[in-house]
């Protein structure tokens, strides 16, 4: 393997850097590290984790991410191909390794999965869910509105993406609690934490529920992503159960913690910038789209992803060898001053915001339309119903490291109390379950085009 760098006189790896994105220092000094890397070596070799390249410049990230012919996402867990290690650096220990769905596959396989899921996740498909999402947001806020205090993470931003994911999958809405905690805790809990055993047990429970859903829906089809996947035509055959579990876990893992992270960071920023918040609320018709893209750029919930070079090649002036590992930093590319003037400032009106927070190239986040819609609906009701919210900096808890997700565990806030508008969360979910079942909302947009109808 590589790692011989400067020692062996490989001049490509001269002056290696020491880059460890799993340390708290990387989070704390993110802007300085980014500036230094982009200034000195926008594509650099680091000896950490058995050696890997780090792409931090926008031009470099853009060109490399889009070179699908020489890059692989493959995670060859069973050692059947070239032994590549997927998108995490370092790769998880062998014993705990499983393939991360089609994010850890290459075309054509990856493309078959996307073709299967696209009609459930396109902008047109996602917009059908808006009335349901609004109800879940309304009920979550109602649970706290009379009290005048809320934890934006626990009481809102965790709930809504989780409930919608259940609905889209065709799993019972009230089961969101089975999936919620393991989806977040598996990201923020360090491997050596005393809590690890409890988290592992919750992950197992989630896996069991997913497996039960696969078996149930295979026997008695009901619309949704699970149904689409069990029947999927992946190059002439249906996917085996272990691949199905990997894809379903990817949809959950890819969607929960990231959307929560975006929402919490944006709300925290709006609390710290009340005049901008007022402006966003007042001019939301014109500003909400660009503000959402700017929060995505600035807070980059998924800071980067790994790749393996699948062939010797030269891109943007650097030669790479087959088998070498690479970290594509979406978060650092988003701060490149050559593309984003004043990159470390949040500008809600930013123009030409070609950020890479949903990735670039063929693995572009297939859930991006879901994430944007859910985010906008949550922020809109918060602006309407808790206009003067103030987050408590003492209680705000950011993830200690941003190696995997730039997330938040807690974001308590206070606001002027207001009246409830309807039923609480549990009762609302029961009512919405009926709506999902009766209107078959989880059908793909190719089968059902109408927007959900909810009686009030």
């Amino acid at each position: 393997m590589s790692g011989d760098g400067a020692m062996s006189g490989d001049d490509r790896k001269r002056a290696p850097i020491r880059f460890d994105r799993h340390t708290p220092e990387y989070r704390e000094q993110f802007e300085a590290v980014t500036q230094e890397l982009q200034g000195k070596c926008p594509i650099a070799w680091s000896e950490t984790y058995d050696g890997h390249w780090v792409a931090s410049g926008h031009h470099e990230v853009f060109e490399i991410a889009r070179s699908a012919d020489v890059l692989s996402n493959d995670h060859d867990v069973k050692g059947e191909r070239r032994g590549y290690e997927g998108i995490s650096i370092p790769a998880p220990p062998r014993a705990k390794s499983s393939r991360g769905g089609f994010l850890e596959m290459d075309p054509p396989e990856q493309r078959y999965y996307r073709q299967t899921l696209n009609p459930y996740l396109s902008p047109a498909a996602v917009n059908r869910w808006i009335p349901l999402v609004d109800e879940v947001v309304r009920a979550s806020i109602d649970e706290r509105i009379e009290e005048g205090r809320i934890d934006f993470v626990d009481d809102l931003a965790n709930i809504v993406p989780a409930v919608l994911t259940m609905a889209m999958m065709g799993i019972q809405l009230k089961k969101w609690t089975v999936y919620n905690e393991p989806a977040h805790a598996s990201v923020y809990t360090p491997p050596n934490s005393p809590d690890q055993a409890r988290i592992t047990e919750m992950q197992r429970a989630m896996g069991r529920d997913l497996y039960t859903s696969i078996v149930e829906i295979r026997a008695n089809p009901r619309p949704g992503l699970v149904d689409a996947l069990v029947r999927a035509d992946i190059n002439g055959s249906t996917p085996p159960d272990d691949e199905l579990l990997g894809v379903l876990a990817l949809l959950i893992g890819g969607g929960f913690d990231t959307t929560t992270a975006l929402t919490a960071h944006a709300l925290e920023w709006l609390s710290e910038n009340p005049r901008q918040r007022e402006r966003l609320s007042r001019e939301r018709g014109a500003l909400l789209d660009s503000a959402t893209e700017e929060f995505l750029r600035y807070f980059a919930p998924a800071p980067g992803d790994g790749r393996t070079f699948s062939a010797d090649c030269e891109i943007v002036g650097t030669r790479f060898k087959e088998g070498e590992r690479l970290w594509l930093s979406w978060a650092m590319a988003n701060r490149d001053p050559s593309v984003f003037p004043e990159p470390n400032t949040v500008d809600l009106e930013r123009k030409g915001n070609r950020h890479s927070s949903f990735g670039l190239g063929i693995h572009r986040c297939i859930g991006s339309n879901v994430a944007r819609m859910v985010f906008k609906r949550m922020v809109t009701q918060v602006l309407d119903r808790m206009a003067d919210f103030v987050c408590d900096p003492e209680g705000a808890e950011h993830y200690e490291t941003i190696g995997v997700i730039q997330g938040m565990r807690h974001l308590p806030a206070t606001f002027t109390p207001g009246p409830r508008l309807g039923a609480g969360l549990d009762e609302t979910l029961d009512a919405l379950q009926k709506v999902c079942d009766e209107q078959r909302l989880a059908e793909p947009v190719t089968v059902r085009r109408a927007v959900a109808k909810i009686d009030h």
Partner: protein
Amino acid sequence: MKVRVDPDRCQGHTLCAMRAPEVFELSEIDGHASVADEEVPADQEDQVNEAVMSCPERAIAIVSTAGARS
């Protein structure tokens, strides 16, 4: 001015349609963009130029006009 979306580069980020919804159409199935009419109405030129600058994949090109960016 005329505008084109390169279908091999477009990955369906949808930013073009946020900027210029009257010009860019998104596929109902996968959200990838296309233009129904390559000819851009004069009152849409600014929005289309912004869409060009916002496309993360640089998939939109303006053809045959002096001064436009691609």
